[in-house]
């Protein structure tokens, strides 16, 4: 079996006159946590719908576990789905059922034997703090608890691939942390994770690979570090005197550094792979006195904004 768990090639999908996907391609490798980001309407949920065989693409191909989703017969597709745990943006819970009944129902649908299902349900309710609510109808739970039930459902059968759409929605910081721990644990057990999220901090903390979507195309992608390096970093330099500032501006511009803003006694320099020691070396060797410096490291939020604001 190949190392690639998900392979999407040139996927296109439109709804009447709206082009939801305009030819996206991506690959997710075994054991990777892949974060798909993008504003509302970027095409993330449509991508998940197609991945699961719920929506038909206009063109392109989707391979899961080396199997073409849209050329699989019903049995092959069912076998494929048994390996996948899913959390959709809309939870779709059966509200009259109790937490225990609901999780047992899904555990059995995913092919767990009755005894294994019972053990697994007990384990899940314990992990997600639902032990005391086991007998409560889902409709009577709070939003956060419903989200935890849905997460437990996705993990109930120890899936080989987890597809999560906004997993931390409605979770308080304690349960967000618990979710992260569970995802990292699942990864350590060999589960590949494909997640869409607006929670950039969460993505930054757990994802190995990130892609940013906008208007149905992938605008930026790469391993997290590599992706962040592709965006401009900024350094603010404060000077002791105005004459130092003027001299520094000329020196830096002549050395091909880009000064993006200037204040009374400070300059902001921007650029890819910008190194503070290089700037200081130029300034010190030319006798410019620097009062203070501040490096602004590129965060995922900066990268996201940069991509989204360029649309």
């Amino acid at each position, binding site marked *: 079996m190949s190392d690639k768990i998900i392979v999407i090639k040139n996927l296109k999908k439109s709804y009447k006159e709206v082009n939801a996907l305009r030819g996206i391609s991506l690959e997710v490798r075994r054991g990777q946590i892949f974060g798909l980001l993008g504003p509302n309407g970027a095409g993330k949920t449509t991508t998940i719908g197609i991945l699961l065989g719920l929506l038909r693409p206009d063109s392109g191909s989707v391979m899961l576990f080396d199997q073409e989703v849209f050329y699989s017969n019903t049995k092959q597709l*069912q076998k494929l789905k048994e390996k996948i745990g899913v959390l959709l943006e809309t939870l779709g819970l059966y509200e009259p059922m109790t937490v225990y*009944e609901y999780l047992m129902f899904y555990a059995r649908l995913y092919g767990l034997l009755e005894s294994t299902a019972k053990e697994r349900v007990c384990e899940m309710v314990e992990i997600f703090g639902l032990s005391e609510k086991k007998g409560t109808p889902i409709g009577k739970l709070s939003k956060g608890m419903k989200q935890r039930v849905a997460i437990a459902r996705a993990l109930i059968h120890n899936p080989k691939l987890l*597809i999560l759409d906004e997993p931390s929605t409605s979770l308080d910081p304690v349960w967000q942390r618990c979710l992260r721990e569970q995802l990292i644990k699942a990864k350590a057990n060999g589960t590949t994770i494909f997640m869409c999220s607006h929670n950039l901090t969460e993505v930054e903390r757990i994802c190995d690979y990130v892609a940013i979507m906008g208007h149905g195309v992938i605008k930026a992608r790469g391993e997290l570090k590599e992706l962040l390096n592709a965006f401009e970093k900024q350094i603010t330099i404060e000077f002791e005197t105005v004459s130092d500032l003027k001299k520094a501006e000329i020196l830096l511009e002549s050395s091909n550094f880009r000064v993006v803003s200037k204040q009374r006694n400070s300059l902001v320099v921007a650029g890819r792979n910008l190194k503070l020691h290089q700037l200081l070396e130029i300034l010190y060797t030319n006798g410019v006195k620097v009062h203070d410096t501040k490096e602004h490291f590129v965060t995922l939020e900066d990268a996201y904004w940069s991509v989204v604001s360029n649309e």
Partner: protein
Amino acid sequence: MNEQIKILLKKELSTLLRNKRIILITMIVLLSVSVVVPTYVFREMVKSTPSDIQSRLIEFSINFYLLVFMIPISLFVAYSAFTDIFYREKLSKTITTLLSAPVTLQEVLLAKALAIIAVAYPFLIISSIIFPIILKVTFPMFSFSMIKIYTILHLVLVLPLFLFGTVLLLGTLTFISKSARLINLIFFFIVMGLMFSVGRLQRFATQNMTSIAWYIAICAVIVTSLGIGIWKHAHPEEVITA
């Protein structure tokens, strides 16, 4: 029956039976109405009707019986089981989530229809037992052999048509695209039409047994072709609002 349908059916039944008190009260009311109205009202009407239009009145009374008994049962049980149906968006969400598990849309709809049948069936059996009694009381001129034919037709035709009508109704209420809903609705009315024409058939049956065979054959062909068409047509995309 495959394992997935069994699991789905068990879940649908447990959801359905949560409303057992309401179901029971409704069924008692329906049974009472379906017994009282034909036996009292129609008997009186037949008495005062000229003999040439009596047979039409009998046919009408049988159809009325089916209308009073079948339609509310199917609608009510469907409502009790799938309250979500009347909130299409909510239904779409639960089915979408369900379809992300190893389950097909066909299995989901079949399990729902079977659950409805499982709950409604005991009442339908009761109706099949009281049906000949009502006929004999309402129309004393009927012989027992005629009543036997009526009852057999009731079981052979009405019940399967009721099952298929329920699946079509579910499709109509579940599907998103207008064309699929319209097709399901048209098919639903065709099946309901077949069901109500059982009354006419039952009248003919007393005169000509060959017509029954033809009628059953036509019903089987129509229902099978509609069934295959819908079964092939049902794709998850039909219930998903992306």
